[in-house]
């Protein structure tokens, strides 16, 4: 394969994701609205494929959510109102950053507690070793 042809294939491959991105073009009235849209679609979990946000997901439900968010923003709804709409139907599960509350505190504070307990244990251990050595 000639170098030029290889180069051509590489360029085609590089632009493939752009072709997918062009599938749905959303038009916005302002930069703020556009930013709100992209922030929102990154904040919600795809409920069909839980390890993706709806911006990355190709699942049909994720596309429906994206369309709904777009339509609601165009109608003038606030991002908070849109978030409430989805929360009411899907619960906090749909948020990639769940809020800190009595159900989620272990998730948020757990790692810090583990680090703290580990440091305490190691501290005690080294204190003893040092005391025995002296």
């Amino acid at each position, binding site marked *: 394969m000639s170098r030029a042809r290889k180069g051509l294939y590489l360029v085609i491959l590089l632009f493939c994701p752009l072709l997918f991105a062009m599938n749905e073009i959303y038009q916005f009235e302002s930069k703020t609205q556009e930013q709100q849209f992209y922030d929102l679609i990154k904040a919600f979990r795809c*409920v069909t494929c839980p390890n993706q946000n709806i911006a990355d997901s190709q*699942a*049909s439900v994720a596309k*429906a959510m994206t369309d709904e968010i777009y339509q609601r923003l165009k109608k003038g709804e606030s991002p908070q109102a849109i978030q409430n709409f989805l929360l009411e139907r899907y619960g906090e599960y749909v948020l990639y950053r769940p809020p800190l509350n009595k159900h989620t505190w272990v998730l948020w504070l757990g790692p810090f507690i*583990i680090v703290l307990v580990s440091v305490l*244990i190691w501290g005690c*251990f080294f204190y003893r070793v040092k005391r025995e050595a002296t």
Partner: protein
Amino acid sequence: MKLIGLRENSWRFLPALILGIIIWVLFKGLDFKQQDPTPQISDFPFPEFSLEDVRTKQIVTLDDLKGQLYIAHVWASWCRICINEHDVLTQIKNKWPYNLLGIVYRDNPDKALSILANKGDPYEYLLNDQAGQLGLSLGLTGTPETFIVDSQGVIRYHHLGALTFLQFENQILPILEQINHE
């Protein structure tokens, strides 16, 4: 001295114990089967809608359903699992007199109709949810999903994924019979 030594030794097991607890908690968390991501959707009023019937092109609304018990089933022709599951629904319809409400989700209506033409059509109404708005209002996580809607228009049960005949008999039929006796 020996007693103190034992106590000091037992300290060394503490990190292992804590690690064990963490692993156990994480391992328990892997059990997805028990979790319905939308548990609040049961005993939730069926959302208002106004959608075209794929076959008659007539507009159907929630008021058309009220007064009767419905099994609402969300499916699409692009969903392989739904097509495989279709025979279960026709069997259910042949065996029991419950009304079936089909919701064709974000699909080409002609493709959905051609599947029904080949495999049989068990539905009383067949809504065309092209934009997926009814699906969102239902808290749909994917296709297929099945809902039981009582005569007051309240969702009484929400089943995620394909339904087997056995699951219908064991889980859904008792709920339908209970609602009938209320």
